[in-house]
């Protein structure tokens, strides 16, 4: 089976891997919307959606747990979005109106290609990251492609040909431009540190995790400890980039009805939603890779060392099998992503939306100077450290 897979042309292999990742990301992104409703409900002292249950499944013992966590509600919602009528208002620019949700999905899924989501140990030693494309552009590709996602919002806002979506689109573009700068500047110190003098330069995300997996005190430290300000700026900019509250400007349902997706309904609308959550997943993954040590369980405890310890403790050879290592690393990484996404939701139901001028002020007058100062300070520091 594995030999057959590696015997296939690389294009087919890549396609198969890509489809597999999309097949996982899409339902996970959809499940995130249910998670959001549940987290919201629990924070507001409500049980949340807990009623839907297909009568044919009611006899299964213990199925009520799935019913209580709203799994069937999620399926019912998904089915509803698939089968309900697709409204196409008369006043919209038809081509761009239909194109916008598709444009939203493409960057959301494309960024996954350069994000590693696990690692396995080579029998001879050494950690191989599991990712679709281990290219040197890494983080640059994520930023470049992720910022394309804004076109869908602008396109949707403009093609809807009505006031509220238009304002939503305008806000989205202004906000994205404002926070893109600080976000990029905030991660630069990480890559300055990772690309030590003498080593081949790389912006790959896998490289950052490798750096955080090094032995020794400084090697095993996650960047969130050594660069807390970078992590903070990146996190705030991430909230803004993914249009999450408190930076919910493009949508701002209180003043813009639904913002850019006011005129959308049915499946097209749900595509926007899935894209938003897919963006969140990728954003959380990048945050976990850059600042939270990727697939390492704890700071100063890299994956290889963890597996070695498990092997030592249990005396079982199974821990050294590449498959076990790969699955364990993916599990650790996924838990980190989910925890980050939970923080996203937690903040959303805690902090009220900023006013638009506050968003602009925070972006241009606070975060940008802060990230530039941060970059300069770390550049000088890293220069002396790596001399």
């Amino acid at each position: 089976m594995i030999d057959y897979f590696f015997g296939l042309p690389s294009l087919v292999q890549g396609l198969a891997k890509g489809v597999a990742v999309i097949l996982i990301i899409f339902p996970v992104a959809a499940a995130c919307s249910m998670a959001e409703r549940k987290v919201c409900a629990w924070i507001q002292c409500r049980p949340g959606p807990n009623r839907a249950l297909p009568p044919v499944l009611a006899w299964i013992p213990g199925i009520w747990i799935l019913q209580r966590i709203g799994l069937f509600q999620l399926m019912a919602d998904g089915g509803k979005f698939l089968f309900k009528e697709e409204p196409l208002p008369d006043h919209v620019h038809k081509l761009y109106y239909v194109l916008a949700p598709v444009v939203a999905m493409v960057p959301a899924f494309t960024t996954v290609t350069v994000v590693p989501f696990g690692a396995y140990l080579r029998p001879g030693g050494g950690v191989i990251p599991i990712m679709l494309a281990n290219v040197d552009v890494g983080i640059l590709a994520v930023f470049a492609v992720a910022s394309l996602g804004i076109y869908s919002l602008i396109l949707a806002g403009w093609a809807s040909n009505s006031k509220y979506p238009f304002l939503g689109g305008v806000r989205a573009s202004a906000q994205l431009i404002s926070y893109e700068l600080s976000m990029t500047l905030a991660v630069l110190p990480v890559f300055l540190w990772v690309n030590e003098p003498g080593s081949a330069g790389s912006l790959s995300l896998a490289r950052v995790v490798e750096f955080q997996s090094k032995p020794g005190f400084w090697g095993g430290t996650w960047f969130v400890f050594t660069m807390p300000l970078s992590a903070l700026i990146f996190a705030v900019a991430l909230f803004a980039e993914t249009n999450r509250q408190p930076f919910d400007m493009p949508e701002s349902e209180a003043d813009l009805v639904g913002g850019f997706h006011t005129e959308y309904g049915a499946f097209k609308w749900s595509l926007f939603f899935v894209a938003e959550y897919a963006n969140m997943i990728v954003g959380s993954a990048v945050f976990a890779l850059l600042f939270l040590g990727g697939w390492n369980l704890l700071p100063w405890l890299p994956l290889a060392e963890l597996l070695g310890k498990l092997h030592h403790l249990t005396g079982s050879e199974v821990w050294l099998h590449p498959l076990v290592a790969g699955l364990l690393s993916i599990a650790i990484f996924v838990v980190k992503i989910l925890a980050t996404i939970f923080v996203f939701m937690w903040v959303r139901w805690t902090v009220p939306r900023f006013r638009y001028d506050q968003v602009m002020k925070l972006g241009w007058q606070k975060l940008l100077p802060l990230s530039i100062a941060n970059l300069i300070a770390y550049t000088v520091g890293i220069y002396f450290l790596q001399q």
Partner: protein
Amino acid sequence: MAVIPVKRRSLTLVERTYLPQIAGGMWTTIKHFFGPADTLEYPEQRPAIPPGYRGVPTLVKDPNGREKCVSCQLCEFVCPPKAIRITPGSVPEGAGIDQVEKAPQAFDIDMLRCIYCGLCEEVCPEEAIFLQKQYSMSGYSRAEMVNHKDRLYELGGTLPDKHFKWDVKKAAEKSGGEHH
């Protein structure tokens, strides 16, 4: 009046970052996150009905199982939305309610009109109509939402009676005494 100057302290640097406030808010929300839900999951859990609750209006019988309503129609006249419609009738022979002269032939309350004001209960001289604890009325048609006499008695049941006023009157008549 004394003027009290209020000192307006400017925000400290930490406060201006807004981060401690966000952390405080998140602490509050996480407590709610793990706290119990305030929701009453309705069809399974029912709310406790307090005394004096004004639910669906019903007709009640006295402890002897006799119809109390004498179809005086006061409730029909007082009803602000005109939800009550009474057809008065004479007391049927052998119904065991010969202490009174009249009884309703038909007694309909249109629950689509009723506003649960309780004026019928207040005005009733016979203490025959009560707004009791039933709060959920539903039906598939307009006709179903009209409570007829038998349904009203079924909902109302029997309530204790302190006076038995017609029995007292009848006993007084029999013994040749004065009416109350």
